[in-house]
């Protein structure tokens, strides 16, 4: 006899068999309460995050289609690279009234750099210019703060509300984790008499969706927990950064405290070369210029990344005296910085090629179905 015919059509858990039950009925009631409220409060935002996250998985591909990706002209793959000082000059010449804040190679395409400038070193109204790494010429650069992907990004990251928006979404992420854990606890009483994967289609629509909710919920469990937890950690990025600034960074630049600001600037290329000699197994991810939050008034901070899938996500700053281009200090990030950086790929799903992106999207859609069916089950029960 298939298990479905032995169960009542109600969605309530089967009456526990005293000797075999995992939870007392009062414990089930408590966990149901936790599951209901943690889900209800966060569902609307989680649906928003899942829906906006879907296009973000493919932001490069979509940008390519929309023509907002930078396309450097085709040249021989081994075409020689120009000096970073030339790249820097191109950016500075394009915006003569502004100061350079950052220089970085594109993360996925080493044929061009970004030069990012602002009115002051800490100005957050930034402009970026893409510069061809082989010619040193400026490339047509789309604006980054407009368009479909930008709107999806802001809705996903901070609801256009800055740090409070981030922390709010982080709290919603925490509720999602609570909902996942309580959902797993409740899986036992609901599924004790059913085989894994049972979907009772012949019963009411509500029963069918309860079964699908349990099936998709328990199968996506680990993925959803990891993406939810790493997403929550990412909402703390600004705070983690501030902590690092006041902790390790402050220690590293302490010897320069109180000195007058730099006047002359040493070579950027030399600074990066010196960093590369210090950390030969790493490559430059970006350079923060003197006076930015990532550096001191006296240093180029050359942030180096490793060259394996994992270490390429990690950073080690090398502080270079901005006048002499000599290294003054370099330390691996403290544990909390490493934790933040490792949590990024695990949230984005961008570390295993296109098939992983597609799986990320499918698991995201499954999560949307879990959220939607959960909401439906609650509405039907009222």
């Amino acid at each position, binding site marked *: 006899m298939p298990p479905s015919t032995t169960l009542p059509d109600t969605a309530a858990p089967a009456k526990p068999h005293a000797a075999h039950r995992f939870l007392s009925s009062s414990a089930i009631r408590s966990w149901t309460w936790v599951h209901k409220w943690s889900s209800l409060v966060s569902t609307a935002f989680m649906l928003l995050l899942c829906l906006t996250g879907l296009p973000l998985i493919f932001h490069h591909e979509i940008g390519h289609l929309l023509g907002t990706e930078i396309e450097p002209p085709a040249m021989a793959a081994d075409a020689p690279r120009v000096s970073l000082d030339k790249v820097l000059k191109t950016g500075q010449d394009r915006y003569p009234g502004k100061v350079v804040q950052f220089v970085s190679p594109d993360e996925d395409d080493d044929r061009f750099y970004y030069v990012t400038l602002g009115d002051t070193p800490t100005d957050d109204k930034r402009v970026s210019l893409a510069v061809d790494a082989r010619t040193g010429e400026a490339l047509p650069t789309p604006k980054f703060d407009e368009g479909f992907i930008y709107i999806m990004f802001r809705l996903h990251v901070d609801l256009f509300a800055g740090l409070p928006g981030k922390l709010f979404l982080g709290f919603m992420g925490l509720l999602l984790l609570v909902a996942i854990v309580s959902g797993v606890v409740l899986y036992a009483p609901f599924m004790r008499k059913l085989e894994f*994967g049972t979907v009772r289609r012949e019963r009411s629509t509500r029963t069918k969706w309860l079964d699908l909710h349990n099936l998709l919920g328990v199968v*996506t469990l680990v993925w959803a927990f990891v993406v939810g937890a790493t997403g929550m950690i990412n909402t703390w990025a600004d705070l983690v950064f501030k902590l690092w600034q006041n902790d390790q960074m402050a220690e590293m630049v302490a010897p320069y405290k109180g000195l007058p600001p730099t006047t002359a600037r040493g070579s950027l290329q030399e600074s990066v070369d010196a960093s590369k000699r210090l950390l030969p197994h790493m490559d430059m991810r970006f350079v923060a210029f003197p006076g930015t939050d990532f550096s001191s008034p006296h240093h180029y901070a050359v942030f180096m990344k490793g060259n394996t899938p994992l270490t390429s996500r990690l950073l080690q700053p090398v502080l270079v005296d901005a006048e002499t281009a000599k290294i003054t200090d370099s330390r691996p990030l403290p544990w909390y910085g490493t934790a933040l950086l490792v949590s990024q790929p695990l949230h984005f799903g961008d570390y295993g090629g296109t098939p992983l992106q597609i799986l990320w999207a499918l698991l995201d859609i*499954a999560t949307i179905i879990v959220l939607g069916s959960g909401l439906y089950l609650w509405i039907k029960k009222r």
Partner: protein
Amino acid sequence: MSHSHSNLHARQRRAQFRALWAWPIAMGVLSIFGLLAALLYDGLGDVLSWITLGVPVLVMCWFGWMRRR
């Protein structure tokens, strides 16, 4: 909860635990493996992550929609 420590009951409980959790645990282990494989190793690691994360997706499709009795 009334506990019986006889072998029979212990066996029953184990069997029941397996019936309930074997699939979810397998899906979870595959997911963790897949999430880490691509992060730690390029090439083969990527391929292993596609397979091990692909299985839970297929399991959902199969039990959720494809299987008809």
